[in-house]
Structure formats: C-alpha cells, structure tokens
C-alpha cells in the first residue's frame, strides 16, 4: 500500500532529479523551445518540496493536489499548468484515502494524464510529455520498473517525431532530431516514482 509518506518521497525524489538534470532539460529545450524547461521545473519542484515539508498533507491525494497547485503557481511556463494539472487531477482521483494500492494509483494517474491531454490538446505522437506518460501509465499495471522503462523509451522515441504542439511546432520539420524536453522530464518523474518504490 502507498501512503502519504510515499507520495511525499516521490515528490522529493523528483525535485532532486530535476536539480541534477536541470541543465540537460534546458539544453534539450534550447534548439526547439525557449531554453527554460530545466530552470522552470527546478523552481517548481523546489517550491513543491518546501510546501510539502511545511504543510505536511496527510493523505496521498492531499500530497499530490498540493504539489500540483504549487507547480501551477510557481513555474511560469507551460510545464507549470501541465504538470500541475497532472498531479492535481491524480490527487483528486485518489480522494481522501489514507492509503491506496498500486492499481488505484495507476487508475488515478491515468485520470491525470487524460486531464493533461485535454488541457494541452496533445495526442500520442505529437512530441510532448504525453509520449512518455501514456506508455508509463499503461505499464504501471505490471510494475513501477516497467513504467520507468516505458517512460524512458517513450521519451527517446520522441526524437524522430515532428512537434505538433507548443512552441516547437512552429519549427515544423526542424523539430525532428531532438528529444522532447517535456517527455524527458516526464520520464524523470516516473523514474523517481520507481526509485521511491525501491524498484
């Protein structure tokens, strides 16, 4: 069973991973974006770690809802409302249960990913975070480790794609050949999840 502490540790692990990878995320965002993905997420997840320490939300749903709100209010780029919506909707779907099992969490995360697709209007293959998140959610039914592999593969598979959403889409064919920064950070989020689960 997964409790509030598990989700707090997931968010903290994500914050640590984003700190480590911020430069790489920004470098990926330079040729096809506005070179702020790493620094934006760094600011956002630092704020998430701080607020979770201060407020100590007591349920899995409350942890993710609070984290999501914090991202929406601190990131300042498109990744804020997108990741914020992902976590907030996932958190809301978990309700106020003190503990959730892996299947309940997988289902809630799917609700969150659906909300992101609705918000951004992205479909699989558009070279976005969805290309890492959807395979991860599909694999989460097997194990956290499978989800991590699926997310990583999904992120890498964005390289030959042409962007159809966001600023990168203005580049047309010139967006081909670059791994999508949003899919890359989504893979970090799922890797942190697997790490937190000890897988």
């Amino acid at each position: 069973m997964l409790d509030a502490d598990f989700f707090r540790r997931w968010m903290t692990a994500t914050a640590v991973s984003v700190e480590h990878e911020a430069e790489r995320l920004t470098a990926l965002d330079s040729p096809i974006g506005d070179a702020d993905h790493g620094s934006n997420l760094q600011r956002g997840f630092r704020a998430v770690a701080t607020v979770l320490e201060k407020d100590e939300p007591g349920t899995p749903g409350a942890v993710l809802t609070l984290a999501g709100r914090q991202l929406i209010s601190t990131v300042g780029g498109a990744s804020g409302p997108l990741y914020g919506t992902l976590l907030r909707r996932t958190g809301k779907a978990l309700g106020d249960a003190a503990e959730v099992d892996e299947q309940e969490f997988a289902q809630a995360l799917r609700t969150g990913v659906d909300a992101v697709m609705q918000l951004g209007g992205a479909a699989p293959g558009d070279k976005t975070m969805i290309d890492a998140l959807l395979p991860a959610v599909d694999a989460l039914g097997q194990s956290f480790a499978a989800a991590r592999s699926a997310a990583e593969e999904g992120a890498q598979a964005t390289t030959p794609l042409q962007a159809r959403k966001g600023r990168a889409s203005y580049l047309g064919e010139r967006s081909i050949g670059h791994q999508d920064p949003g899919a890359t950070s989504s893979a970090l989020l799922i890797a942190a999840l697997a790490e937190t689960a000890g897988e």
Partner: protein
Amino acid sequence: MSDLVNAGTAGGDGGKLVGVVLVSHSAAVAASVAELATGLAGGGTLAPVAAAGGDGDGGLGTSSELISAAAAAVDRGAGVAVLTDLGSAVLTVKALLAEGDELPPDTRLVDAPFVEGAVAAVVTASAGADLAAVEAAAAEAYTYRKV
C-alpha cells in the same frame, strides 16, 4: 506585472460592467494592449481593465498570481473576460479555471485574437454588454480579414 489599467466608471444606469483581463508573456505587451484597448474605447463609461503580463519577476512568462490578482481587481459582479496571447498563458488560465476557486465566479477564457479581441472586449464591456456579448464580440474579431 498586474496593472489595474482602468478601475472602471459606473454605468449610467448604475449597471455592473464586465471586467477584462489581458494576459501576455510580456508585461509590456499586456500593459500596452490594455492602453490601446481603453484608448480606443473612447472617453465615456469605461469597463475595468487589468493587465497581467510576464512571469511576475521581470521576465517573460506567465504568473498565476498576477492573473488571479488582475481578475479579482476587475470583478464587479458581472463576470470577467480573460484574453491571452499563447502557450503557457492559455494553459495557466485554463488550469486556474479548473481549480474552481482561484478566479472570480463567471470568469471566462475568451477565445479571441489578443489585440483585436481586447479592443472588441473593452469596447463592448464599456457599453454595458453582458459577459456572453463581450465574449462573442471578442471572438468575432477572428473573422475580420485584413486582406
């Protein structure tokens, strides 16, 4: 920055006016479009208009705090029309609307071109139109072809 460009003047019949919020990645763009729209709305009754531009820290980006503050500042109880430029400005407003309690009741993201839509929204809101009419006027700006 979040600038209340115009606090709004009471309508002749004391009716409440729809507020307009202009959200851009750039503080200068948001403030300038607000200035343009209020300037073109004429010298009579003017709807409340606020600009929410930039990341709140002097850079380009979107600030949910500025957007919330701007919407609260122009809310007179008749609804608030929010116009945005692109990308994170659109997504942030949508995410705030989905929150449910971050923006005044009857706040709408209006699907309109930023500059032309802002002028149409401020002019109609200043004329005392309701939120649906303000939204329709702003959206209609998409149909105005220049060539």
